[in-house]
């Protein structure tokens, strides 16, 4: 929380990088650009993303 673009995406990317496929991550971010960028990141990298609530997101590694 409190981190602006692109830090939330960099951090989730680093977390997912060496994860086993299907690993579930939870991302907390109040940067208003996070959801848009997380979706774009998911499209570009093949990881599955979804929004839980306004500042909480879930990522499932590919």
């Amino acid at each position: 929380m409190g981190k602006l673009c692109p830090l939330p995406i960099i951090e989730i990317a680093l977390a997912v990088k060496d994860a086993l496929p299907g690993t579930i991550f939870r991302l907390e971010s109040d940067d208003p650009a996070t959801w848009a960028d997380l979706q774009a990141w998911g499209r570009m990298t093949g990881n599955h993303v979804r929004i839980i609530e306004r500042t909480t997101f879930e990522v499932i590694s590919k």
Partner: protein
Amino acid sequence: MGSVTGLFTSENRLHPAAREILLDGIDKGWADPAKLHRPSRELANLLTESKVIFARILGLKEETVTFVGEPTLGFFLGINGLLQPMSDGRLIYPATARQEVIAVAQSTRRSLSLEVDLDGGWKIPQALPGDLLVWPKANSETGARSPSPESFAGPIFVDATPDPMISLPTRWSTALFDSRSWSGPAGLGIFAVNDQASWRNPMPHLDHRVVPGGFNPALAIASAVALEADLIDRTKTITKISELNSIIRNFLQSEISDVDIASPADALPHLLSFSFLYIDAQQLVDRMERRGFSIDSGSACISANLEASHVLAAMGRLTHGNVRIHLYPEHTQSDITSLLQALKEEVALLRGNS
């Protein structure tokens, strides 16, 4: 090594052909063109000649050409003048429309923001009674072209500010052009009301004038000269600009990883928007500036209100690490090669994998 033209921002220098005319226009533009004195008549003649040029190139009738000293006001005039006060009609616009359109929409009773796809494409909806469509000729950030609005049965406001040269639709109602889009001086819009349109002046007004405020006649005269010169430049360089666009696309796809190109392949060739994953756009813009390249960005960290480009967000494109490139007739392949090499190096440095 030859000099590099490093200016890739949406604001360009005044066209050289217009600069001298602008200075001359300031000398002659002090009079009131509505009066009968000799300086006034001379100025009125110059403005009439300018209107003829605007009308011919922009596809307007000369009598419909009016000058707006504040182009943003043209959005309000063009849209609100078409909305019927007592109607339940909707103000319909693509989600990627300019912020000025969205600001007007937020002050109207009913509006409809149309979804766009990953390429910025959208569909013309069926008009209900009283509906008004805002039709941008293209998107000013990505260059994505708008679908033909000919099937829309209601009035149409044309946002022609991204590119003046795309033809107006047959049934346009009001249209707005921005002098800066043809390397003319800033501070001048061309606003037109189709003589077939049901337009009512939405501003408090005393007389028949369409635009309430004044404008600088020197800017109008210089802008007409810039438009003529820009048309010639564009005609000569249209193939070159398309080739430069292809060079940039090919380089981005082959030489830099994790790039999201927001501008679709058939977009206006002089506009290119793309985003680098994991890159802070502010750092990239600063570093490129230090290397002599001025570029724009739609990322949140660059914008005045710290909000990411609503265009990129609506398209589902990456909003961070965004770069916008505006190609001009004077750009050469050497300029582009230098720009791309600098981008590649700076992205690698910022990603920490140089």
